[in-house]
C-alpha cells in the first residue's frame, strides 16, 4: 500500500518551491480557521451597524464624540462616530489580535520547524504572513466602516452632513468624505500592524507580543492628549487617527492629514522591516528560542525614537510650526466661520429671510482665563464673543460662547447667551425637531500655520 501511495504522490513541483501566493493562501486559511478571528469578522461586520442604528434612534446622542450630535440629522454621522471610536479602541485591538499573533501563534503551537521544512524560505513565510494578516485587517476595517455606514443610512437616511466648520455637505459629498476618512485611517492602522508584526516576531509566545500594538496605540493617544508642540504631535502616527477631521472643513485641512499619513506609512515600513530582519536572524533549531526577547525589542524601539526625532525636525522645518498651534487668531477665525455657517442653517430652519455668510461678516473676539492668561493653547477656559450683521439692520448682533479646546485642536462651543440666538430650544425641521444648531457645536482649529480656514 505504501508503495502505491508513494508512487502516486507527485513531487511538490518542478522546482520544489512554495510560492508566496501559496504561502499566502495557507496563512489566510490558518487565520480564518481560528474562532477568534471569525468572531472578530462577525463583530466588525455586524456590531457597528447595530450600534449606530440603535444610538441614532435614542433621544440622547453621544455629543462628546465628534459628529455624535448630528446622528439624528444624517446617517453619515454614524460611520464618523464609529471612526472616532475605532481609532481609539477598535483598530489597535484588531491589529493586536491579528498582526500581533500571526508569528507568535507558530511559537505557541510549536509549528515553526514543520512550516520551515514545508516552505523552506523564511523570506516567503514572512511575506505570506504579513500579507495574510494585512488582508484580514483590511477585511475587518472594511466591516467597521461599511457596517456603521449601512446602519446609519438605514436608521436615519442619506442626508446632508454638517461639517466641522458648520458648512453643509451634500449627501453624496458626505459619503465620499466618509469613505476617504476611513481610507485615511488605514495608514495608522498599518503602522500598528507593523508594530504588531515586530512584537509577534520579537516576543514570540509572550503575551506582550500580542498586546504591543494596543500598548503603543494607548501610549501615543495619551501623548496626543498632552499639550505637545505641533511638530511633535504631527510626528506621531496616532495623529492620522484624528487628522481626517480636516476633510470636513472648507477648505479642507489636508496638510496635517497628509503629514499624518506619510508618518504612519514610514512607521509601518520601519516596523515591518525590523520585524523582517529579526525574523531572518532567528535560529529555528534552537529549542530554547521562542522569539528574540526584550533585548531585541529594546533595540527595535531605538529606531522609532530616532524616527520621531527626525520627523519632528523635518515637520518643524517644513511647516514652521512652533508651540501648541492653538492661537487666539485661529480660534477666533474658526469660531466665526462655524457660527456664520450654522447661523445660516438656523435662519433656514426658522424660515427667516435667507442670509449669506458674507452678509453676516461674523467675527469673534476670544480670551482665555477671563483675559488673565495668554490666549493660546488648549483649555476649557476660552470665552468668545461673536459679532455679526444682518442686511438692513444697523446694530450688530452679539453672542457669547464658552469654548473647550482640546490639545488636538478640536473644540466644543457652548452657547452662553443670548438664549434667543444660542440657547437651547428645538427647531422644527423637515426631518423632525432638532436642537438649535447654534446652541452647541463642534469645530476645530487648524494647528499648522500654513493652513487657512474658509
Amino acid at each position, binding site marked *: *500500500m505504501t508503495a502505491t501511495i508513494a508512487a502516486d*504522490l*507527485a513531487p511538490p513541483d518542478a522546482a520544489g518551491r512554495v*510560492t508566496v501566493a501559496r504561502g499566502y493562501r495557507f496563512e489566510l486559511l490558518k487565520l480564518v*480557521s481560528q474562532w477568534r478571528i471569525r468572531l472578530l469578522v462577525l463583530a466588525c461586520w455586524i456590531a457597528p451597524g447595530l450600534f449606530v442604528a440603535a444610538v441614532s434612534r435614542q433621544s440622547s446622542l453621544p455629543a462628546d464624540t465628534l459628529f455624535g450630535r448630528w446622528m439624528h440629522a444624517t446617517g453619515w454621522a454614524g460611520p464618523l462616530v464609529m471612526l472616532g471610536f475605532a481609532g481609539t479602541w477598535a483598530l489597535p485591538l484588531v491589529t493586536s489580535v491579528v498582526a500581533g499573533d500571526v508569528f507568535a501563534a507558530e511559537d505557541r503551537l*510549536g509549528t515553526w*520547524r514543520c512550516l520551515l*521544512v514545508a516552505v523552506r524560505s523564511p523570506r516567503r513565510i514572512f511575506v505570506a504572513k504579513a500579507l495574510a494578516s494585512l488582508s484580514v485587517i483590511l477585511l475587518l476595517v472594511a466591516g467597521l466602516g461599511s457596517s456603521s455606514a449601512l446602519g446609519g443610512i438605514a436608521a436615519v437616511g442619506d442626508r446632508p452632513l454638517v461639517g466641522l466648520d458648520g458648512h453643509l455637505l451634500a449627501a453624496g459629498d458626505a459619503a465620499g468624505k466618509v469613505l476617504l476618512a476611513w481610507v485615511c485611517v488605514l495608514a495608522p492602522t498599518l503602522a500598528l500592524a507593523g508594530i504588531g508584526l515586530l512584537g509577534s516576531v520579537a516576543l514570540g509566545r509572550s503575551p506582550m507580543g500580542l498586546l504591543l500594538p494596543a500598548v503603543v496605540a494607548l501610549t501615543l493617544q495619551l501623548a496626543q492628549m498632552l499639550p505637545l508642540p505641533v511638530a511633535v504631535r504631527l510626528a506621531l502616527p496616532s495623529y492620522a487617527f484624528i487628522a481626517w477631521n480636516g476633510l470636513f472643513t472648507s477648505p479642507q485641512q489636508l496638510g496635517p492629514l497628509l503629514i499624518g499619513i506619510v508618518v504612519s506609512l514610514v512607521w509601518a515600513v520601519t516596523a515591518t522591516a525590523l520585524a523582517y530582519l529579526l525574523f531572518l536572524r532567528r535560529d529555528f533549531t534552537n529549542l530554547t528560542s521562542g522569539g528574540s526577547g526584550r533585548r531585541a525589542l529594546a533595540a527595535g524601539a531605538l529606531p522609532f525614537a530616532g524616527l520621531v526625532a527626525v520627523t519632528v525636525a523635518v515637520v518643524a522645518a517644513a511647516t514652521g510650526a512652533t508651540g501648541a498651534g492653538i492661537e487666539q487668531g485661529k480660534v477666533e477665525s474658526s469660531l466665526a466661520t462655524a457660527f456664520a455657517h450654522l447661523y445660516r442653517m438656523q435662519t433656514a430652519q426658522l424660515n427667516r429671510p435667507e442670509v449669506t455668510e458674507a452678509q453676516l461678516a461674523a467675527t469673534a473676539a476670544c480670551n482665555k482665563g477671563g483675559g488673565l492668561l495668554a490666549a493660546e493653547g488648549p483649555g476649557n477656559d476660552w470665552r468668545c464673543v461673536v459679532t455679526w450683521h444682518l442686511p438692513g439692520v444697523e446694530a450688530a448682533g452679539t453672542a457669547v460662547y464658552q469654548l473647550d479646546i482640546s490639545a488636538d485642536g478640536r473644540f466644543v462651543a457652548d452657547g452662553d447667551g443670548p438664549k434667543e440666538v444660542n440657547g437651547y430650544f428645538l427647531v422644527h425641521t423637515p426631518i423632525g425637531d432638532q436642537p438649535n444648531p447654534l446652541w452647541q457645536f463642534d469645530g476645530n482649529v487648524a494647528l499648522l500655520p500654513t493652513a487657512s480656514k474658509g
Partner: protein
Amino acid sequence: MNTVLAIRARGITKCFGDVVALDGIDLDVAQGQIHGLVGPNGAGKTTLLGLLLGLAVADSGRLEILGTPVRRALAVPDGVAGFVDGPGLYPSLTARQNLAALAALRGGDARTAGIDGVLAEVGLTDVADDKANGFSLGMRQRLGLAAALLTGPRLLVLDEPSNGLDPAGKKHVHGVLTRLAADGTTVVLSSHRMDDVEALCSEVTIVATGRVAFSGPLSKLAAESRELDYRLLTSDPPAARLLAADTAGIGVLDDAEPLVVRAPTPALDELVARLVRAGIALRELTPVVSPLEAAFLALTDEQEAGR
C-alpha cells in the same frame, strides 16, 4: 548490501553560543535503511535531526543528503520530510484540512494529492474530519507522519515517532515505516524507547554529549556488549543459585528471588548446560535490560566519564 548512502556526514559540529551541541559527528546511513538515533537528553539528537531536515547548517563539517551537499539552511534536496520536536499541526483545522493545506502549499490538488491514502495508511480515516485540537499525542504523531508521507519522501526524519502511541498505534506505525523502508525510503528516527529501536532499526547510532559513541548494526552492538544481567526461573532455585555461584564468569547479584546473574554470553551458555545436566528445569531466562539498552547505558556512561 546497499552501498548507496542517503546521508553522509563528516565532522559535523554545531554550537549554540557557548554550548557545543554536536562535536565532530560522523554518520553514514544507507538508502532504504531504518536507522535509529539514540542518546540521553541533551545529547544532540534533535539538533542532528534538524540539520538533516535543513532547519540549520553545521558550523563545520560536510553533510551530504541524498547525494547532494548541504551548505546552507533550508537547502536540503527534495524528498526530505519529517518532523522534529513534535509533528507541528494546526489545531483549528481538521486532519484532512491540515493535509490538504500542506498539499496546496506544495502546489498539489487536495482532491488528487493522496490525502485519503495517507490517512488510511496511518489509521486516521475515522477521524479525518475531526479538528486536530481534540487529538491525543499519539494521533498527532500519526497525523504528522501522514503529512510527511504526503510528500512521497525519499528520506524520512522522525523525532520520537512512537511518543504517545498505544500498542496498536505503535504496531501500525512500525508497519508503515517497515513498508516504506522496503520500498526504498530511508528512515532516520530518534527514540528513547529501546524496544522500538530494536524492533525497527537495522543500524543504530548512539550519541552522547554531541559525539558518536557507537554507530553500526545492532548485532555488532550486542557483540560489543560486555556482561548483561539475566533473570533465571528454574524448578529448583536454591540448587540453581549454588550452581551459578560455582560457574566461572558468573556473578550472582543478590539473594532475592528470582535469581539474577551477571554474565557474558559464553559463561551463560555454560551455566545453562550445567543446569540441564543437573536435572534442573529452566523455565525462563530473560535479560533484565535489553542488549541495546545495556550497551546504550554503558557507552553513554563511558562517554560522560570521559569528558
